[in-house]
C-alpha cells in the first residue's frame, strides 16, 4: 500500500477507464475523489455503481459533467440528468438488478466466472443471457464484473491500509475493494495501525493499493 495525494490518486486514472465507485445514494461515496475527477476532467469513463445519486452529489457530479460514457447501475430514478442523457443517447445506461449487480462484482473479486441467479428471469433482464438448469431450477448466468479501478470510501483506514466502514456507508465499498485492478481508498479518518482491532477490519490491508492522504 502506498499513500498518495488526492491529485496523484486521480492522475493515475486514464480517460476511458472503468471505475467501480462505492456508495448508495451518495452515502459512502468518496466525494473528494469524485470532485478531483471532475477537476482533472477525466473523460469517457465507465461507471459501475449502485446508482447515480442525485444531481450535485456523489456520482451525480460525474454525470452532470458528462464524464461518463456508460453507467452500469441498478437505479437512476432520483437523477433526472442521468435519465435525460440516457434518452438523448449521450450516455449508455445498463440497468442491473441490485442483488445481481453486487453479486456479480463479488464474483469478480472472488475469482469466480459469474453468478447463477433466479432474479431477472421472465423480464427484459434475461435478454441475450444464457440460462442454466441446476437440480431442476432455472437460473440466469450473469458474468462476473471487474473494473480498472475501485474507488472506496472507508470510515477508518490505518497506516497499513486496513479498513472499516460506518453504518450504511459500507454498502458496495468492501465488495468493490476486491474487484478493482487498482484500489484507491479515501477515508473519513486515518488512524494508527492497531486502532482497528483485527476482528473489526472489514477490508484487509493487502487488498488496498493506494490510500489518499488527508493533506
Amino acid at each position: 500500500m502506498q499513500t498518495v495525494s488526492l491529485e496523484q490518486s486521480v492522475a493515475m486514472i486514464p480517460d476511458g477507464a472503468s471505475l467501480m465507485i462505492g456508495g448508495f445514494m451518495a452515502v459512502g461515496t468518496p466525494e473528494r475523489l469524485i470532485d478531483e475527477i471532475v477537476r482533472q476532467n477525466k473523460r469517457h469513463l465507465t461507471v459501475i455503481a449502485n446508482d447515480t445519486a442525485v444531481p450535485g452529489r456523489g456520482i451525480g457530479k460525474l454525470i452532470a459533467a458528462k464524464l461518463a460514457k456508460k453507467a452500469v447501475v441498478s437505479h437512476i430514478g432520483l437523477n433526472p440528468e442521468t435519465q435525460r442523457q440516457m434518452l438523448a443517447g449521450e450516455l449508455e445506461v445498463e440497468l442491473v438488478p441490485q442483488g445481481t449487480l453486487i453479486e456479480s462484482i463479488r464474483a469478480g473479486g472472488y475469482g469466480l466466472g459469474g453468478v447463477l441467479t433466479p432474479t431477472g428471469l421472465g423480464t427484459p433482464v434475461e435478454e441475450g443471457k444464457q440460462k442454466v438448469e441446476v437440480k431442476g431450477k432455472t437460473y440466469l448466468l450473469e458474468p462476473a464484473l471487474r473494473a480498472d479501478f475501485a474507488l472506496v470510501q472507508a470510515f477508518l483506514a490505518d497506516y497499513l491500509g486496513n479498513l472499516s466502514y460506518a453504518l450504511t456507508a459500507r454498502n458496495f465499498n468492501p465488495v468493490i475493494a476486491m474487484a478493482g485492478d487498482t484500489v484507491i481508498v479515501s477515508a473519513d479518518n486515518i488512524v494508527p495501525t492497531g486502532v482497528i482491532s483485527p476482528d473489526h477490519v472489514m477490508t484487509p490491508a493487502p487488498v488496498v493499493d493506494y490510500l489518499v492522504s488527508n493533506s
Partner: protein
Amino acid sequence: MEPQVVIARRIAKELSNGMLVNLGIGIPTLVANHLPAGMHVFFQSENGLIGTGSPPEEGMTHPALTDAGGRPVTALPGASTFDSAMSFGLIRGGHVDLTVLGGLQVDQEGHLANWVIPGKMVPGMGGAMDLVTGAKRVIAAMQHTAKGAAKLVKKCKLPITSLRKIDMVVTELAVISFRSGRATLLETAPGVTTAQVVAATEAELVIPDKVAVMAL
C-alpha cells in the same frame, strides 16, 4: 380514512413478532407506522441495515445512517449493518419473511409489474426484482385503480418484475390473495361491496361464498 392509511393498516396486520420485513418506498413505508404496540419486527433497508427506525429528531441525523431512499433514519437497539452482498443474500436467500412493495399492475395469476413504464418512467429496478424473487412472502400495496384504469388486470401489459407470483394485494377497496393460483377476493373494505370491487377490477376474481370485511 385516506386510501393509503387503509392499505397500510391492513397490511400491518400481516406482521408478527420477530419477522424480518422489507418495506418499499411509498405506501409500503407507511406500514411501519401501524405496527401494533409491543410487537418487535426487524425492518431491513437494503442499503445495509436491519433494525431501521423512524427518522431522527431534527439536528440528530447522521450522514451515514440512511434508508434505501437515502433519507436519514435511526437504528433501533439490536440493529445490525452489513454490505450490499449480504443485504441481497438476505433477500434472495429467503431470509426476509415479508416484503411489501408498491405496484403498477398485478395480473390475475399474481405477477407484479412495478419497475418500469417503457418510454415514460425508467428509474431502474433497484432491489425490486430480487425482493419479489427471493422474499418468503410478497404483498403488493397499491391503490385499486390509477386515473380510473384497473391496475388488477388479466395480463400485465407492463414488463413484470419477476416470474415469482406474489401472495397478496391490498388496496383501499379489497384484499386479494393468490394462494390458490387465482386472484381470490378475501376481504372488502368497510362500506365497499363485492360488486364495487369487481367493477374496479379487470382481472377475473374468484368470489368465495363469504367475503370478510377488512379489519382495520
